[in-house]
């Protein structure tokens, strides 16, 4: 029997028992669709977090005061400590100390009540240097960012995030006045829209010169203290070198050892990893449950193949009497089971894609189905069908022709 004939026979056997074949495929269909959607949801969430963190800027390193240990215990009071200063930022900007660092932007943050006319709004006020714009990969859509001159003079100018601007002003905010901590600031620019990065809304903030922040807004005892230093490496390749240089320079200048640092240096990559870790665990868990449903689908295929062999004992006997060898019978039933699995897989893939198109509207969660997972789903469904077919097919192949012909 040629492969084409075996295929035809298997196909006709599936078609002859349409209802049963459809129900069997349904098991595989549901399993494949469930795995694809859970994995797709997980991937979608991870991609969203990753893109949000990448939106922080490219080739970015972030220094924060205090330190976290690998076991996520806090040391030196992260965030509240004042171990990081403007002096550190100036030192890291020195090309002889950190040659792979392209730009440095120290920043201090404070939540403040804002007022513009009768409108009030609470937002995060960031005091920083003009380099912040390029280091954080932001642009100004209207007006301008503050300059070195504003910085040197300690001008009371502010650049608003898009959300902050729309909450405070109805018309064009440029040139208007906003009151922060009872100081009057002139709005000179509006930032581009970025979306939310984990917990921080990047569109709801007010950016002011560092000098102005220190004199007018900061509540810290040490006016030189900053809450972050953003560093931009020269390019992707020098990111690792920049990390080493910054780490060494800060350890030396702070007089601490690598075992107990008073600062935390993190890269974009490590942030992405931390943020996606939880998502990943959830994906694996849900994917595992979905995989079990796929396994149940596979058992369904095996079950139906066993029934099919039992029902067709006479047919198998006749085929053997007419010259079918055991290996041809084996092949025919394996092909039938694989075909059930693969067809279920293809239908499951279609349902998965349909779900990926519909679900984001219901859950407001992106679902990403990659080509790799689509091909993987087909391979898995084929493999499940094949594996489920082995035992029934062997039983069919081993039937003695006389016993098979005799049965009624």
């Amino acid at each position, binding site marked *: *029997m*040629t492969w084409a*004939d075996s295929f035809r026979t298997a196909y*006709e056997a599936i078609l*002859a028992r349409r209802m049963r074949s459809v129900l069997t495929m349904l098991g595989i269909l549901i399993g494949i669709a469930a795995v694809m959607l859970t994995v797709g949801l997980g991937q979608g969430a991870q991609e969203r977090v990753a893109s949000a963190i990448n939106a922080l800027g490219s080739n970015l390193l972030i220094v924060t005061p205090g330190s976290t240990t690998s076991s996520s215990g806090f040391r030196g009071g992260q965030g509240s400590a004042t171990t990081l200063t403007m002096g550190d930022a100036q030192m890291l900007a020195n090309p002889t100390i950190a040659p792979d660092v392209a730009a440095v932007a120290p920043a201090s943050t404070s939540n403040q009540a804002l007022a513009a006319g009768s409108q009030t709004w609470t937002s995060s006020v960031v005091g920083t240097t003009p380099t912040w714009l390029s280091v954080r990969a932001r642009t100004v859509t209207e007006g301008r960012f503050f300059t070195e001159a504003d910085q040197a003079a300690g001008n009371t100018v502010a650049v608003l995030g898009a959300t902050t601007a729309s909450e405070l002003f109805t018309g064009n905010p440029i040139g208007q006045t906003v009151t922060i901590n009872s100081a009057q600031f002139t709005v000179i620019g509006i930032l581009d829209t970025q979306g939310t990065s984990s917990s921080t809304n990047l569109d709801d903030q007010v950016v002011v010169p560092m000098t102005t922040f220190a004199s007018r807004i900061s509540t810290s005892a040490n006016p030189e203290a900053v809450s972050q230093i953003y560093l931009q490496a020269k390019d992707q390749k020098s990111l690792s070198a920049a990390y080493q240089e910054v780490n060494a320079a800060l350890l030396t200048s702070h007089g601490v050892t690598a075992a107990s640092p008073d600062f935390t240096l993190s890269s974009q990559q490590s942030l992405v990893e931390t943020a996606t870790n939880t998502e990943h665990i959830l994906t694996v868990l849900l994917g595992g449950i979905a995989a079990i449903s796929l396994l149940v689908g596979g058992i369904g295929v095996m079950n139906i193949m066993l029934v099919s062999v039992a029902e067709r004992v*006479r*047919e198998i006997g*006749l*085929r*053997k*009497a*007419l*010259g*079918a*060898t*055991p*290996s*041809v019978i084996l092949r025919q039933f394996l092909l039938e089971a694989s075909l059930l699995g693969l067809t279920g897989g293809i239908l499951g893939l279609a349902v998965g894609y349909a779900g990926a198109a519909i679900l984001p509207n219901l859950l407001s969660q992106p679902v990403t189905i990659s080509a790799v997972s689509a091909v993987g789903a087909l391979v898995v469904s084929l493999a499940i069908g094949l594996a489920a077919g082995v035992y029934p097919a062997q039983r069919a192949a081993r039937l*003695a*022709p*006389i016993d098979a*012909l005799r049965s009624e």
Partner: protein
Amino acid sequence: MSAATLDDLAPVEADEPGDVDGSEPEPILDLSQVRKTYSTGTIEVEALRGIDLVVPEGDYVAIMGPSGSGKSTLMHILGCLDIPTSGTYRLAGVDVGVMDEEELADVRNRRIGFVFQQFNLLATLTAQRNVELPLVYARVPRAERRRRATEALERVGLGDRLDHRPTELSGGQQQRVSVARALVTDPDLILADEPTGNLDTASTLDVLSLFAELHEQGRTVVLITHEREVAKQAVRTVLIRDGHLYHSHEEEVAGTEALATLESGAEPDPASRVPLWEHGADEPEEDRP
């Protein structure tokens, strides 16, 4: 072993086994001291107790016997669906007792055409596809398969029923389809197991006249039945009872008596036996030359 088997096969594949080196033509069937023992649990059942049977090419033999006589077991052995416990069975010169399952399947496919009591047609396939089935396993290309299946169906008078499914055909027609299926591979032997058992009188005559026709065309036919009327259609009849064969073709009288004895249910008169086991059954140690 496989080399010897191939050597045995070589002259047979020329389809004229007798013409090689001018010796006597090989008989189609040559059974010598064939025994078959089944063990059901602790009890051993001897279904065949030393069968000797020679069927030359072109013969039309009926094997007749009541149920439980070993008739079905003999049919299974003849059809290469089962192998003897002891003794030798040569089909067209080839010893099939030493073959494995794959080789037996090939022998069934190429050398034997089966006709069963239950017709055994696949309900989902058309008459033509049913007849094609043995050719599918012989890896014959589809176009040739269709042509040969059509020819075979035309030969049994069903040229206008090619696309009918078994359920759309009468019993007699279904059995004609299965005769066509038996013919399509041009086998050495047509083996019919109670071919009229499920047919009415008209269909029985119909199918039997088909076998007579095949015999006239030079086919070798072995027909297994329990009906005397059916067996009478064959050129000769052998009787089977309790695992022994009784030949009745040489002496009409002896055969008739044996038949009568069988039908009356009494033990056959030993005098009427013309058993081939005369050679060996009494002295099982002795090997046939």
